[in-house]
């Protein structure tokens, strides 16, 4: 009778047992087919928004003929607020007009402006006409659609803005009296 040699049987059994044992071996508890590392960044509060105005000072004479460099007196301009027949405008002349730069990474911020006059209050009306920079000069607004009259309090110029940007304005000043003393007009821009 042809029998399978006993030792062969044993080897096969051993082989099967070994294979079964190998298959049954669990992966070590620490086994990982991926690896991870973390970077922790702590963000602390600070000056999240900054506003820069350029230029920071301007001067003009209440002089309908020669108000000064960068200024013009006009009896009618497209960017004047409705009802304003005459006013002085700072356009920057050969340079840029008033530039307001807001630096932030924040989203949905707004820009407001207010003004004061000293030493006498309520001697001047002020408006801002939003424009754009083209090369080194600002483009004359074609209409007063983007012109905002500043009220005595805070006036909203922009809303829903995202991240940093620079906006340009013509500054329109309308003294309501013939001033006899130097008058300082201070405009404050706030982004938040």
């Amino acid at each position: 009778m042809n029998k399978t040699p006993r030792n062969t049987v044993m080897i096969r059994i051993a082989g099967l047992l070994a294979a079964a044992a190998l298959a049954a071996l669990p992966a070590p508890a620490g086994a990982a087919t991926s690896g991870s590392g973390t970077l922790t960044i702590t963000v602390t509060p600070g000056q999240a928004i900054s506003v820069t105005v350029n230029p920071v000072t301007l001067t003009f004479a209440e002089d309908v003929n020669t108000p000064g460099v960068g200024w013009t007196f006009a009896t009618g301009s497209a960017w004047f607020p409705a009802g304003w027949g005459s006013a002085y405008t700072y356009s920057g002349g050969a340079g840029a007009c008033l530039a307001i730069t807001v630096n932030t990474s924040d989203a949905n911020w707004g820009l407001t402006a207010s003004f004061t006059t000293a030493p006498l209050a309520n001697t001047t009306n002020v408006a801002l006409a939003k424009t754009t920079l083209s090369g080194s000069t600002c483009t004359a607004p074609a209409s007063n659609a983007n012109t905002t009259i500043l009220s005595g309090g805070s006036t909203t110029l922009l809303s829903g803005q995202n991240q940093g940007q620079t906006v340009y304005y013509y500054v329109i000043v309308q003294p309501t009296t013939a001033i006899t003393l130097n008058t300082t007009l201070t405009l404050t821009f706030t982004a938040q």
Partner: protein
Amino acid sequence: MFTGCAIRRGGSAALPMIPSRRLSVIALLAAALAGLLQPAEAADNITVTPATVSAAEDVYAPGAGWTFDTAASWFPAGWNSAYTYHTSGCATVGITGGGGTPWSLTAYYTTNPATAVNVAVAQAGVGACGTPAGPGTPLSANSGSPTTLLTNQSGNQTTDYFVVVQPTIALTAPTTITITFTVAGKSVNSATLAMTMSPGNAFAVTLTPSATSFAEDVTTPGPGWAFTTGASWLPGGWNSAYTYYTGGCVAVQVKTSVQGWNLTAYYTTSPSTSINLAVAQAGTGGTCGTPAGSGTPVSANSGSPTTLLTAQNGTQTVNYYIVTQPAVAVTSNVTVTTTFTSQ
């Protein structure tokens, strides 16, 4: 002329003398047999010590006798990461009784179950286990065309080897890697070294630095950070953000022998805050330069992380600019945790 002989079988007792005619036949048969079978060359005796070893595919703790290295003089050309058996001694291949007949040594390896593993050996000395003088020799995985390690050798020789194993996948089950050393040019004789490699930490991801902080302050965000507007490395649509780069990059080092791995990332904020995060690759190795392109926004969803790298091989260090864009003015500290995963 034979008149008889004594045949010993195990013990020492002599058998009775056999008649001479029968002895003549036996003598002839013996002579014929001697002609067919050459006297056994002593080089036939090959041993490998140790015969079995075990290791883990674990870059932190591969096991006694093993190291994981990202560069070694004994690695074959093109290998930047592998596991080496050498700290408890070498794998010693002993060949004795070589006589005057030249012999050669070949080797090949097999894996069980079949697994993507590269194997090499680097000769560390003859009769001594030192540092290999040169790069190792990759072994063939084909038993039909083994790799020749030594040729035209003679006499007794004990050759010591570093054994270099490079799993190119992350093992999920124990794998036995068997190297078969064969003395060629003689009556074939072989010896094996069986290495069992178990799954472990096939990857290690290290970030340098691992922690940093900045103030959401457009003027002075803090050391290493700058508030950047319109930088080339900002992702599309981002014009303002805080970038970690002025003091160097964040280096993401992945240590592994695995080939073809990917790197992903995601981030979380605590407390939950509207903050965007991106990374911009600034170089590899020791290079931290201006990123060549715009950054990649990172997912805030751990379930669908952002893929930063694909098909990478072995150990790599990738340097990043880290770009963070708080979309709100934070009023208290916020922790942004970015998790980089290789797999």
